[in-house]
């Protein structure tokens, strides 16, 4: 079946603009995760959803970042008033079972965001 998909694959924007990144998880996966990976760095956890709920939003880097998930499926990560330090690859993953509990995560290919 289809894996996790993310769109767009690449996004170039100007400083100060808002961007919206989309993630389509594997059908039936209840948990969805967002990460950020800067060049040559490890994965920085941002937020996870169990169904449509995000129990802890403290991983989001600033109040310019927000995320939502609707219908237990698609999720969007929105960055308002983008800054150059927001430039990174944003990765989404999903898992079948409960988040943060032993479950294998399936990752999408990522969205490469460049803020000029």
């Amino acid at each position: 079946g289809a894996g996790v998909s993310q769109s767009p694959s690449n996004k170039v924007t100007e400083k100060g603009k808002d961007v919206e990144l989309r993630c389509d998880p594997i059908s039936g996966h209840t948990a969805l995760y967002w990460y950020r990976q800067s060049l040559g760095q490890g994965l920085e956890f941002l937020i996870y959803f169990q169904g449509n709920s995000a129990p802890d939003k403290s991983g989001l880097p600033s109040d310019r970042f927000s995320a939502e998930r609707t219908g237990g499926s698609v999720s969007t990560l929105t960055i308002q008033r983008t800054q150059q330090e927001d430039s990174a690859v944003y990765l989404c993953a999903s898992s079948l079972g409960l988040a943060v509990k032993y479950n294998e995560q399936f990752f999408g290919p990522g969205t490469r965001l460049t803020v000029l």
Partner: protein
Amino acid sequence: SQKIEQNSEALNIQEGKTATLTCNYTNYSPAYLQWYRQDPGRGPVFLLLIRENEKEKRKERLKVTFDTTLKQSLFHITASQPADSATYLCASSSASKIIFGSGTRLSIRP
């Protein structure tokens, strides 16, 4: 704060040898550790999970150990091949967060 550290940024070994990668955790006791492989320009791919009550887990040429006394997991690739060259990440969860190590870039030379 809870941390997962992968001490080696890069590891270069000869084809056919065993590669051993290290993952150490501090300030918490994870219930499990996961290992992922990441190739350039792609998302990580899950390899193995080991729970705290398991000493060792194997899958084909891969072996993972979990030592709660040393607070460490070791990831071994036996009979390594150039195709095993990639970045390997360990990960676990703490409360409502997922923590990843920074990764070890493994290069297998022919």
